[in-house]
């Protein structure tokens, strides 16, 4: 297998109006799936665009196998598959024609492209719609075309930004399976808000907030941080606001006997609280809350 290493060295990005999207972000990646999690506006998409050579960082550098992608972007672009969060299509082309066009742009020879496109259309479940104009595709179908184009050149680095947005649950599962199967031989960066997607496929997790890397590690390490700190309490719905006031409530479910609230806390929030197995969502919310708390204290 080819040597694969992506190094993000203290990358910062400041937009006009002195708006900092990334601040000294550092990360080093090898083959596997990195789940990039973070709240809205955390800087995930900016980081994705920088890694995809669309945007240049204000400071810092990104190295692909030791080569700075700012000075030699094609070193990465040749082996890059990128699915942006928002992308367009040419409405008059069919799915197959659109992929043929992008295959030509990516420099694939005709025979390889034809074979690859056939396989990819099967893979994303669009073989029957391959000859229909893209203009008539639904959002989910377009997203699957986007997934197919990202895999056209058999990328060594696959960057997917919110890839399951617009997909129905069945297609989401298919895509997760696909990512899992692809991950062994390449670096995959999966940016999403959907923690369950990350939980299903990621071998590594990076949590980003306010343009900074909060934590990076295996999912187990993140889970270990909240082990023994997740509780379930059953309360009348009227008491829920008070519970939220004093505790981090990661989820609630309304049942006949009251509201079942999932709480992340060092100590049981009530005497009748029942301890639960932590989920990645609990860990994510707890880590994020701790980061916000630390940032607020630092500001004071």
């Amino acid at each position, binding site marked *: 297998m080819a040597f694969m290493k992506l190094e993000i060295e203290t990358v910062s990005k400041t937009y006009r109006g002195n708006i900092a999207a990334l601040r000294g972000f550092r990360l080093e990646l090898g083959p596997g799936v990195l789940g990039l999690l973070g709240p809205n506006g955390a800087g995930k998409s900016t980081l994705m*665009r920088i890694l*995809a*050579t*669309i*945007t*240049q960082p204000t400071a810092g550098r990104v190295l692909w196998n030791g080569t700075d992608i700012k000075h030699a*972007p*094609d070193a990465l*672009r*040749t082996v*890059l598959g*990128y699915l*942006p969060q928002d*992308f*367009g*299509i*040419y*409405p008059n*082309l069919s799915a197959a024609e659109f992929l*043929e*066009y*992008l295959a*030509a*742009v*990516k*420099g*694939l*020879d*005709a025979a*390889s*492209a034809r*074979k*690859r496109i056939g*396989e990819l259309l*099967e*893979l994303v*479940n*669009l*073989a*029957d*719609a391959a000859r*229909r*104009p893209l*203009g*008539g*595709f*639904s959002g*989910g*179908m377009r997203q699957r075309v986007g997934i197919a*184009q990202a*895999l056209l*050149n*058999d990328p060594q680095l696959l960057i997917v930004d919110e890839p399951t947005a617009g997909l*129905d649950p*069945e297609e989401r*599962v*298919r895509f997760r*399976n696909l990512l899992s*199967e*692809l991950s062994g031989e390449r670096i995959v960066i999966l940016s999403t808000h959907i923690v369950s997607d990350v939980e299903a496929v990621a071998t590594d997790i990076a949590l980003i907030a306010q343009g900074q890397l909060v934590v990076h590690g295996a999912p187990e390490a993140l889970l270990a941080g909240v082990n023994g700190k997740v509780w379930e309490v059953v309360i009348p719905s009227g008491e829920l606001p008070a519970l939220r006031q004093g505790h981090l409530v990661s989820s609630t479910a309304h049942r006949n006997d009251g509201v079942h609230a999932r709480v992340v806390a060092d100590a049981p929030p009530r005497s009748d609280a029942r301890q639960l197995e932590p989920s990645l969502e609990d860990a994510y919310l707890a880590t994020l809350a701790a980061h916000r708390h630390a940032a607020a204290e630092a500001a004071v």
Partner: protein
Amino acid sequence: MRALGVVYAIARADFLERVRRYSYLVTLLFAVYLGYAAGTGIISLRLGDYRGVYTSAWIGVMVSLVATTFLSLVGFYIVKNAVDRDRQTRVGEILAATPLTKSSYLLGKLLSNFAVLASMVAVLAVAAVAIQIVAAEDRTFHARALLLPFLFLTLPAMALTAAMALFFEAFRFLRGGFGNVLWFFLWSFGIALPAVTNHPQLDPSGLWMVYQSMLPAAHAGIPGYKDGFSLTIADKSVRVATGFHWNGVEWTPAIVISRLAWIAVAIALVLCGTWFFDRFDPARSRQKSGAKSRRKGAAAAAGVVPELATVRAPIATSTHLTPLASGARHSGAWRILVAELRLALKGYRWWWYAGAGGLLIAQFFAPLDVARGPLLAVAWLWPVLVWSALGTREARFGTEQLLFSCARILPRQFPAAWMAGILVAALTGLGAAVRLALAGQSAGLLAWAAGALFIPSLALALGVWSGSSKFFEGLYVALWYVGPLHRVPGIDFTGSANGAQAGRYALFYLGVAAVLVGAAFFRRARQLRGA
């Protein structure tokens, strides 16, 4: 009152969104340039070989007519994006889900279009004052004579322009490039309307009315005057008619009403537009494509087939992706050229190809002068929308991120797109080239080649720099109208009207093409480097 409030809210939001963009500054700079051009004689109002002394009346009418004619042409392209912006940003769909009526929406947009154009007129009105002060040919300042032409001549014409732009946006067939091309011809027709129809009331620009107002004084004060009246560009051979005394248009109630009536026409036009406006319902255009698919015998219309209609494979489908061979990533340049050509020509109906084919065949059989003259001219107008997509397609369809993250875009995709444009020019004008070659007219052939290179280069440069096809569509049609159609030497980029100078002008156009492609390349390289 509530409806008026809604109209105002729509207009205010749209106007603020526009004036907070850098492009608005460019439009104001364009207005400043028009004022400068009028003040320095680059554009002049002429009565035969003469112009009037720079009195308040003359300057007021001159600058207001400059605004009326040039802003009505260019301003159309500037403001023809009010509805499109809501479509692109999808704000339209949010608005469509409210009780907002089509007429309130379009009237609000009309008001905003008008406000943008009026702000440019205001710049020119200030310029008019400055011209009188700087020129100092007549130091008596008459505010009414100087400024009323802007109020009664220009602003109604701007209201009409604003309404036309909106009507074109509301009407699906006029929304795109075809509408942009059509506007130039409609605008030309509008200027000539009172002369053509012999109805002085049908004078949206007001040129005819001003001409009629000046005629008696011109006959009395200009020796040998023979009814000439024009706005000319870059013709400095004008003399000052010192004996011409004219105090401006006499704004009688009848004249004022006839001018203000154009505002009523503008409002009526927009209200007519509500009939065609789809209110951001994508199903309207999909129904069209559905009918087309049925004609083709397709199982179902692509646009109305729900996603669930695709056959589903089991969730556990395994991924059979064959790894790419190491040599698979190195295809020849011709492959991307074919892909770009196919992309450029995709989506046109049969009649478009039939028209292009008919023009091509006619070039082979018509007399040489006709083949390389009017036939080549029309053949090179026919694909204007193919060229206007050059450099803008990525921005228009939002595929920049997909393309710009691919390797070797500058050395591969960029020249392939340009070459595809050249191939379209070469194919549509092939008949004339063959005829010139057979006739041994090497200078003519060189001119043809220069034209075939110049057109896609202009399209690519304007497209990459502006991100919109409108500028090429407007400018190219104007150039085509003056050059190839009216055979103005030098401006005819096909070379047909350039006579003995054809070779020299060909070299000029080749040089311009090189500069344009260089400019486009530079801009695209910057885009690829990222902001």
